[in-house]
């Protein structure tokens, strides 16, 4: 009897494991098939480098360059804000405060990850967007910059908690050794702690970026949704995710527009896949040492 249960459980675990792999493969092939059908009718270079996204005009134009630039700008801005702040927050939580404060701060940061993205977008709309408009004296506060700021908030919990884990797992013997050689607290952090924790911190950053690239609701609400190539970060942009979310409901199934959205999905998938791959490289490097 016990043996039968054992075999059953083994089978269940096995099928669950393979199921998740199968799902990834299915999603990928689905995206790939729809995109492939699209690229048969629409030139792939025109798709990637085209400046205009006019799916309803005649003839329809499916250029996603402005969307790629939009996603890139928002992501870059979010990283520039979130990365330094997150690393310093992680250092502060791990190295400066006492243990009891550390526990409180860490759960608070983790709680931040639980805020739904629509709420972040809402707060951005009410609080940040008017501020940006007044502060930088631009015609609208719905800009790439506003998106970056709010997305930085979304990326920070991931970046902070994972970096903090990496920093915290630096053996205290290293810190003690550095301090005993006359290094100041800051020298110890910079030269030993951060260096040792670097692979983990890089992985944290990559995972944070992954979250930012794929984020939809917040950017849809506060980046202005204008698919033009912006001249600065203080202009409205439209991201790839926002286009898919906004237009998928209105397309005719099987139409060019429909397939074009799948192709954008494929581009997004490839980008996040690449980011995760790089994150894995960093984590793997950590293990080999």
């Amino acid at each position, binding site marked *: 009897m016990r043996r039968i249960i054992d075999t059953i459980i083994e089978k269940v675990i096995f099928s669950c494991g393979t199921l998740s792999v199968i799902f990834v493969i299915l999603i990928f092939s689905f995206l790939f098939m729809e995109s492939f059908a699209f690229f048969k009718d629409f030139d792939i270079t025109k798709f990637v480098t085209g400046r205009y996204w006019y799916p309803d005009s005649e003839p329809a134009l499916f250029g996603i360059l402005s969307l790629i630039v939009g996603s890139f700008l928002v992501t870059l801005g979010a990283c520039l804000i979130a990365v330094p702040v997150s690393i310093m927050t992680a250092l502060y939580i791990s190295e400066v405060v*006492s243990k009891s404060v550390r526990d409180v701060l860490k759960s608070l940061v983790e709680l931040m990850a639980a805020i739904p993205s629509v709420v972040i977008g809402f707060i951005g709309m009410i609080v940040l967007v008017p501020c940006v408009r007044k502060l930088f004296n631009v015609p609208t506060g719905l800009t790439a910059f506003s998106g970056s700021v709010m997305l930085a908030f979304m990326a920070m919990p991931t970046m902070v908690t994972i970096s903090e884990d990496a920093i915290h797992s630096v053996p205290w013997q290293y810190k003690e050794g550095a301090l005993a050689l006359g290094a100041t607290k800051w020298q110890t952090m910079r030269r030993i702690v951060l260096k040792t924790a670097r692979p983990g911190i890089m992985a944290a950053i990559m995972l944070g970026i992954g979250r930012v690239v794929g984020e939809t609701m917040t950017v849809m609400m506060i980046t202005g949704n204008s698919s033009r190539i912006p001249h600065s970060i203080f202009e409205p942009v439209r991201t790839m995710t926002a286009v898919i979310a906004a237009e998928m409901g209105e397309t005719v199934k099987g139409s060019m527009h429909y397939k074009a959205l799948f192709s954008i999905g494929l581009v997004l998938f490839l980008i996040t896949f690449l980011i995760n791959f790089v994150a894995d490289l960093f984590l793997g490097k950590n293990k080999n040492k």
Partner: protein
Amino acid sequence: MSKIEIKSFNLYYTNFHALKDISINIEDKRITTIIGPSGCGKSTLLRSINRINDTIEGVRTSGEINVYGENIYDNKIDVDILRRNVGMVFQRPNPFPISIYENVAFGLRVNRIGSNRWTISETVEKSLKAVLLWDNVKDRLHKSALSLTLEEQQRLCIARVIAVTPRIILLDEPCSSLDPVAIQKIEELMIQLKNRYTIIIVTHNMQQAARVSNDTAFMLFGKLVEFDKTEKIFTNPLKKETEDYVSGRFG
């Protein structure tokens, strides 16, 4: 004149009274060992001399430790400079996960000793030679320090301390993770270094204390029981507890 004068020193870990009214004078250019059973406070006492105990939460002290006539628990003391002058080698070899070269250069860089690359290289070489590690590692200076054996790692840690030219070297059970052959080599090294540095070793190995040290302090339950020449402690101690411990009746 004594290099290190400890005067009625007390240390508390939150509510635990770990060191009780310790007074001791440690002389120049000698090896002093501190022995005693586990938990007697010997490591704590050692770690008080470079104030590395400060990094532990809830530590309070009273009394004085004078190093070169200066009370290191005075508020005016710059702890980073103190730790440069009072080097420390830990129980488990703890080379940083960077290259062998950078491990030794670390102390020079953080203390801004040796302004150019040439003087740093020179000091690195000199320090590695002093611990008899140079010949083993000169061809792989830029390999990770974690690729060394434990004994080599411990030598590297000693080299790292020597590089910043301390006057006192504290060793906290430096041989406890090494095999007998490695222990012998490290002990020889310590005796060599005695001419240039004041060395204090905490050890749970009484043979080691007898072999390498000039003076020995015996501690029990956070108190200093007896401090004298090593021969005296091991052959003709004044206190009964000391005799019981060194003859192996407990501990």
